[in-house]
């Protein structure tokens, strides 16, 4: 047998091979769509062709066991095609209306909730956490699981004023760029790295370690006769970059690491411009395995929003209308000095007006 041929720079397979025939036939020729019920979309082509999409939840961290089961369903109902969404849901598409209900029944039997369309809470975009990352201040998949267990009814219905997007990141690096979400759950380190002076000299290259710090907070130093480094603690912003290059500088601190909650961001341009999420809760304790403080806090914000916002208002639009004082009052959240920005351009967030409600 000839040796396998190793090729480089061929790029990904062409998407053409991955499309359901009905998707291919109507490519670029779609006319409109309807959201038939939570998790079910119907797209209509110029030709009158109809394609049904069923959207199911996924943990994103999924095994080949689950993927093969998803493939079995796609073979059974969708001529062997499926896709994943930008929020890591799984989508099944078929041109046969009769397949929709049996597919939904099979998904439910598999333990896959169907929903996430329209004015719902869709899947939570998230990062690696303790499952796979060295800088994580908390787990990501576990936090997502407990929050969605709590909010599942908002996934399987479309009862909110507008869609609500939640994201989790397990450290400030924010691999998932959570900073423009209706609700962002962010793992935080709050203390500088600890330094193992006994090991550092052997394990790490000192110039590389010094260079790794974006704040220039690390300096070479002799400690008890050993080549090591020191951290200027006032400069450190707990990013963990140093730990990435030097395992003798762990950033994790079980006593102090925790979770912060941010609200009111969005990426769509609908009505208002995209917005950053702003600080709602500076610190919640890290309480695995089910983080009750975090899921309660998120649920509270969702419920107040659901009651108080006007039709089609996103969380950020709602807060901008009622104002931040009312947001803190209605959600019963404490306002602290940490909510007042002290970074570059902080002054642009001060209230320079007498626009105050009494």
């Amino acid at each position, binding site marked *: 047998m000839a040796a396998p*041929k*190793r090729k480089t*720079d*061929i*790029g*990904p*397979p062409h*998407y053409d*091979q*991955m499309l359901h025939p009905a*998707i291919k036939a*109507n*490519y*670029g020729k*779609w006319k409109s769509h*309807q*959201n038939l019920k939570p998790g079910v979309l119907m797209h209509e082509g110029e030709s009158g062709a109809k394609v049904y*999409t069923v959207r199911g939840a996924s*943990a*994103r*961290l*999924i*095994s*080949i066991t689950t*993927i*093969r089961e998803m*493939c079995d369903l796609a073979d059974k109902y969708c001529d062997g095609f499926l*896709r*994943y*969404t*930008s929020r890591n849901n799984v989508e099944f598409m078929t041109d046969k209306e009769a397949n929709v209900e049996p597919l939904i029944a099979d998904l439910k039997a598999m333990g896959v*909730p169907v929903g996430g369309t329209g*004015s719902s809470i869709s899947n939570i975009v998230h990062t690696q956490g*303790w*499952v*796979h990352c*060295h*800088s994580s201040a908390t*787990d990501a*998949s*576990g936090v997502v*699981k407990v929050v969605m*267990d709590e909010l599942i009814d908002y996934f399987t219905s*479309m009862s909110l004023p507008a869609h609500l997007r939640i994201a989790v990141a397990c450290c400030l690096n924010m*691999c998932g*760029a959570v*900073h*423009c979400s209706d609700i962002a759950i962010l793992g935080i380190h709050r203390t500088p790295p600890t330094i193992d002076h006994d090991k550092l000299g052997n394990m790490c290259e000192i110039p590389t370690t010094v260079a790794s710090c974006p*704040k220039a907070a690390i300096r070479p130093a002799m400690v008890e006769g050993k080549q090591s480094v020191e951290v200027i603690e006032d400069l450190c*912003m707990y990013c963990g970059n140093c730990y990435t290059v030097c*395992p003798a500088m*762990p950033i*994790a601190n079980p006593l102090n*690491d925790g979770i912060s909650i941010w609200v009111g961001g969005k*990426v769509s341009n*609908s009505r208002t411009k*995209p917005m950053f999420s702003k600080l709602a809760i500076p610190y919640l304790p890290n309480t695995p*395995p089910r983080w009750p403080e975090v899921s309660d806090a998120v649920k509270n914000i969702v419920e107040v929003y659901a009651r108080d916002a006007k039709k*089609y208002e996103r969380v950020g639009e709602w807060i901008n209308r009622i104002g931040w004082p009312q947001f803190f009052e209605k959600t019963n959240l404490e306002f602290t000095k940490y909510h007042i920005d002290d970074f*570059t351009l902080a002054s642009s967030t001060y209230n320079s007006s007498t626009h105050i409600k009494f």
Partner: protein
Amino acid sequence: MSNTPLIDELVKGPWPSFIKDIKRTAEKNEMCKDLLNLLEMSYRDKKTHWKHGGIVGVRGYGGGIIGRYSDSPELYPGVSHFHTVRINQPAGWFYSTSALRYICDLWEKHGSGLTNLHGSTGDMVMLGTTTEHLEDIFTDLSEHGWDLGGSGSDMRTPSCCLGKSRCEFACIDTMAICHDLTNEWQDELHRPAFPYKFKIKIAGCPNDCVASIARSDCSIIGTWRDNIRQDDAAVAKYASGELVYGARADGKVDIKADVVDKCPTGCMSYEGGKLSIDNKNCNRCMHCINLMPQALRVGVDGGATILLGAKAPIVQGALLSSVLVPFIKMDPPYEEFKELIGRIWEFWDENGEARERIGEMIVRIGKGNFVEEVGCDPIPEMICEPRSNPYIFYEEYFEEE
């Protein structure tokens, strides 16, 4: 008794459980077993047990593999090495089951059997393998028509919304663009040579389902130059309640209150049952089209707005992308766009500092200077408002004759 009592708590509840999933897979895979043990230890200690690794990779590539080691190799040897392989996803995250089953078989043979579908950048993220497997994985992948994604200071794997494949809002062919750019820039993707990472995301319309404006150094967002297409008969059906917005209890559209009054530019009116749009003043926000997709459609003269510079907070604070080019046609072979990106990369290469994202560089040198350097004219669409501070650095002076 189970030796993972803490994470077992995550088997409960209605949302799909990743722990349950890993457990079933652990029946046939030692790596999964030790991953569960290591994770249990993190749940107990409230801290990560991973270390970043040395550089690992495959021959000829500088990116695509992320080295990962645990801090407890003696306790749990199965995950002492647990590297990630990023596989470049097909555009739009569409799969045939035969393609996905191939990937599953590969990962059964060479890895932990665990994946992320998908990673934040867009790749298929294959979690957990060891260095000895990497060359075999790559050879097998490339034989079957697959390739690795990016990592490190390179162009990261471009990704896109599903665009024209299933969305009538798409003003550009996102999947075709994504596939073409990925292939055009294979060298930039696989061999890191930039000051830092460079992400490209392509959204078909201003709804931006891929969050390109928040998550990519270069955001390509579809828009249109001509008029919103309007079907008056369908408008009447929304007005009468025959058509509704979504399948929600309060889905009947009140055209005046829900559409016209919520239009941010005040460019719509509804009088005597006739909806009118002053398209010259529409800012393409999508609200009215989102609400009444059967009655209103994006225009036919589609193209893209190009925005630059989004990033997460570290180091200088988070940024959203901001406008560089208000409208550019995006028809193959996308020459005008590619030339623009070429100029941007060249300038960033020469002027960017190590680990400085392009958005941070633009802030450091000034957007006015940047646009000039990459051959664009300064235009008011690039900003929200002109400066209010008088500290202008004039570059030209009159000299006495």
